[in-house]
């Protein structure tokens, strides 16, 4: 069966890329926007590239750059990064359910690329069995490569792009909208999403920073489980 080996590898790459290209498309404008901001804050393309490789977390990179230009200390920036990225614990825990007995070295490599976007693309495919770790790795690392290239490109030449061009500010929101739609499989998911969104809005008004994301998600999912256990039939139908 030797001839199937390269074909399988090609199939894995094709599957991963055909699911992952929208993430890459979304990362180009966001990454370039980040590069432009970082360059304005005094970072060189080398600084920017190193950050994208070592950290690879969009929202906390934006926050770090704004804190750097405001003169914040390294411990403050690191603590903020930790809080912002704590939500990945929830995502990696959810992914772990479908990655039993996977190779630990590959899992360590996969962990590096767990983001809001790759998570939402990989999870339904791992759940349905259409996907295994290799395809998920292709998704994560093509997204990572795109992020790296876009942020550096933004740092190099982004100053020539006018502000607000082609609605780039909306790329991330549009991505979240579609990823949320993917998640609304049953009524309980819709209910949980509504509780999380409303709680997040209410909390965002009263507490500073973005810890409202983690608090609202944990509270809504906990309430969702409680409701689901109490009325298993009534609420778990298709949404």
């Amino acid at each position: 069966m030797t001839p199937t080996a390269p074909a399988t590898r090609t199939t894995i790459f094709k599957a991963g890329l055909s699911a992952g290209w929208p993430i890459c498309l979304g990362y180009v404008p966001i990454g370039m926007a980040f590069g432009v901001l970082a360059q304005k804050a005094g970072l060189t393309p080398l600084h920017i590239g190193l950050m994208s490789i070592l950290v690879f977390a969009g929202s906390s990179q934006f926050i770090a750059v704004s804190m750097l230009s405001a003169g914040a200390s390294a411990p403050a920036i690191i603590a903020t990064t930790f809080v912002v990225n704590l939500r990945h614990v929830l995502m990696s825990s959810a992914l772990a359910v479908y990655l039993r007995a996977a190779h630990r070295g590959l899992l360590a490599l996969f962990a590096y690329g767990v983001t809001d976007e790759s998570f939402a693309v990989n999870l339904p495919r791992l759940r349905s069995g259409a996907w295994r770790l290799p395809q998920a790795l292709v998704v994560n690392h093509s997204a990572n490569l795109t992020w790296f290239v876009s942020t550096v490109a933004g740092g190099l030449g982004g100053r020539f792009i006018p502000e607000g061009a082609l609605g780039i500010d909306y790329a991330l929101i549009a991505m979240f909208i579609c990823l949320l739609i993917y998640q609304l499989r049953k009524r309980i998911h819709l209910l949980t999403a509504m509780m999380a969104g409303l709680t997040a809005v209410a909390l965002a008004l009263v507490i500073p920073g973005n810890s409202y994301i983690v608090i609202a998600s944990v509270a809504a999912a906990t309430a969702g489980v409680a409701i689901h256990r109490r009325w298993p039939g009534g609420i778990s139908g298709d949404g």
Partner: protein
Amino acid sequence: MGDYLLLLLGMGLVTYLPRWAPLHYLSRRSLPEWFVQWLELIPAAILSALLLPALVVDGTPRHIDLMRPELWVALPTFIFAWWTRSLGGTVVVGMLLFWLVGKLGPQLLGLI
């Protein structure tokens, strides 16, 4: 550059550990049923908690603003995503609509 590298290593570490630890430890044991249910609800909760404030909350101090173009562009973008289930298409359509509203918005608002 040395200080900057230390900062990046610190940021990298606190970003990587929450991504790695659950994959490393939870993939080897079976989880209680309620926890699996909870994890199953987490993605919808997180995405909604990220999204809704981005649509309706604005400014410092933060306040609710229902006239933000982010919110009104989100409605057709939602419908498009619901019908097509296409991530790439949704990103393109959302960006295009937001750009159009930015171009035409001032005139449209002038009519009201």
